[in-house]
């Protein structure tokens, strides 16, 4: 067995979880990433090996600390232990026990010591207006802090919608000029884990991939890991059959709503929002508790241009129903169901032939008889 190669006793002590629970967690994460058992063991090994844990610098910008809070309240047992021991969290404004200039000094020290090796997590938007004076930490603007930390980071993860594309701060009229980390750090690759708050499983999965393989998972054009954001909510939604059959709830509490019909008419943004909520459920709460599960239309919190931008009850664009999805083209015909030009011509020819034949027959009527004589 591959697992006998590792010594889990130290890990069990350190994380305060049983070997069984720990391996179950790793297998679960690997499965949601679309990886097999081998990857799960590789992940387990990576986590068990203390030397492999990357140092993490965690910055907070304009935000509500929702992503961190979501992470701390994750459903899996002892996850806070895991996430805190899985990585070496050197600097985190919410979770650090210390405070003030001492902690700021430690951050600089950690960044210097682990040059090119640390993982930078950005949480919150970065305000650019008026030289970034709208957000300052320890006397340093978020603009400077982000630029400084990104300089020597091995990888950058934008955690939450605010860090990914600006979030609620960036909504019109955006007085602080808030932008997300990818828009600010244009020359760097930034992995984004959007959501308000984002699903902690999406973060843990991405970080575990990084820890295990030393590189980031495949991402899409907006920096989102494809394993988590590759599909629209609409594609995996369990209310989807109601959508296809035209059964819609039209107002809260009506017959359709009580029967669990599709929430599209109530403004559900599932058809234009890329996230894995239907399979993992929003915020990893479990038990069917996510917006669409409890009968509320999806808000589109993780989708740039949707959450905080489109009105709550306005209809969304249905991105699944676009070409080259299976639609009959304008010229499509069912087999043998219509008169074509050829059949019309043939019918016309038949009529013409009948007319001509009768005329010829009439003219020949007498001739034949006279010839016979």
């Amino acid at each position, binding site marked *: 067995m591959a697992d006998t190669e590792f010594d889990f006793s130290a890990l069990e002590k350190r994380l305060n979880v049983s070997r069984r629970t720990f391996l179950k967690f790793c297998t679960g994460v690997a499965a949601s990433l679309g990886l097999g058992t081998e990857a799960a063991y590789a992940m387990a090994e990576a986590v068990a090996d203390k030397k492999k844990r990357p140092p993490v610098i965690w910055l907070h910008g304009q935000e509500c600390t929702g992503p961190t809070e979501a992470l701390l309240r994750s459903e899996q047992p002892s996850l806070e232990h895991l996430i805190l021991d899985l990585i070496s969290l050197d600097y985190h404004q919410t979770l650090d026990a210390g405070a003030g200039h001492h902690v700021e000094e430690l951050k600089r020290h950690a960044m210097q010591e682990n040059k090119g090796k640390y993982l930078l997590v950005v949480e919150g938007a970065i305000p650019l207006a008026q030289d970034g004076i709208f957000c300052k930490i320890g006397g340093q603007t978020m603009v400077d802090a982000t630029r400084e930390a990104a300089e020597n980071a091995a990888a950058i993860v934008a955690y939450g919608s605010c860090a990914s594309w600006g979030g609620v701060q960036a909504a019109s009229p955006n007085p602080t000029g808030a932008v997300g980390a990818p828009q600010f750090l244009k020359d760097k690759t930034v992995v984004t884990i959007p959501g308000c708050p984002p699903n902690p499983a999406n973060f843990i999965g991405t970080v575990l991939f990084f820890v295990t393989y030393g590189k980031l998972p495949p991402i899409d054009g907006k920096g989102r890991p494809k394993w988590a954001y590759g599909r629209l909510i609409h594609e995996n939604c369990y209310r989807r059959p109601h959508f*296809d059959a*035209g059964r819609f709830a039209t107002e809260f509490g009506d017959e359709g709503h009580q029967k669990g019909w599709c929430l599209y008419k109530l403004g559900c943004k599932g058809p234009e929002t890329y996230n894995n909520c239907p399979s993992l459920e929003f915020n990893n709460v479990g038990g069917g508790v996510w917006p669409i599960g409890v009968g509320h239309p999806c808000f589109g919190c993780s989708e740039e241009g949707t959450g905080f931008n489109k009105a709550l009850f306005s209809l969304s*664009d249905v991105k699944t129903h*676009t070409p080259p999805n299976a639609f009959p083209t304008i010229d499509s*015909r069912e087999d043998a*169901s*219509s008169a074509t030009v050829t059949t019309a011509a043939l019918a016309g020819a038949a009529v013409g032939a009948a007319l001509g034949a009768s005329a010829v027959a009439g003219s020949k009527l*007498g001739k034949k008889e006279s010839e016979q004589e």
Partner: protein
Amino acid sequence: MNRRDFLKTSLGSAAMAATAGVAEARPNLEPAPQAIGMLFDSTLCVGCKACVTACKTVNGNKPTIVGEDLQWDSARDLAPETFNVIKVYTDGNQLTKDSEVDGFAFEKRSCMHCVDPGCVSVCPVTALVKDPVTGIVTYDVDACIGCRTCMTGCPYNVPQFDYDNPFGALHKCEMCNQKGLERINNGMMTGCAEACPTGATLFGSREALLDEAKKRMALKPGEVYNYPRGDVRDPSSYHEKAVPEYRQHIWGEKEAGGTNVMHISSIPFDKLGMPPLGERSFVSISESVQHTLYSYMALPAVVLGGLTWLVKRNTDGDDEGGEQ
């Protein structure tokens, strides 16, 4: 009567009949004042096909199964079991909705319920009739002789004959008002309009729908408009949406005398498969020609006279020969 007199008379009467007919050429029919219809706004359609499913459910039609693996309805065009279908126009990379270039657009195919319907005009047994009050083109299976002339008389390829059935009948949308269903008579709306989540298929009187369509034409692209859903005269709900750049063309306002089911879109209608039709109803033209030719049975009389003369000329010698 000698040959010369006979030809003179028959040609003269034919010419008279022809001139009388031209003078009587009938104009386009007018829409019924209480006519009901539907307005399809291509820019609102999201392609969910809820209307196709609703249509099949309401009318009791079976799904169109293609191949052995697919177990869902995949109708490609109107068919005996499909009265309504959503099709797509695509161009280039197919990225932008309602864009003629590098875009796509949805289009509904169903009976247009013409004001001056070709199928009704050509039907020899009045199995197809336009309802004088609602303007719905209805079909009577008991009167139908299965000649399928209506299929060639329709410019939109709407009437469909089930060739596989030995007792085949014609099938088309009757606005959910056929015998046994009668949704309109019972104050309900069509199945497709009721199911449409965006109001892309809007139900109502032809007059109210035409007003709504004209109102949309007048809107400025980009401004927010409150789109009604269901029945335009008493909408079940509204939803707000930015106005697209509409083509200033309401298909069915005037085409071939107008239709009760009208379409509006952001791309030209020829791209959406609409036939090139002028404002003059082709039915009025063909009926004028036909009724002229057959007025007082003049032309048949001429043809019969001609044939009779031909026969007589060629058989005259025989009679004489016989006597000899």
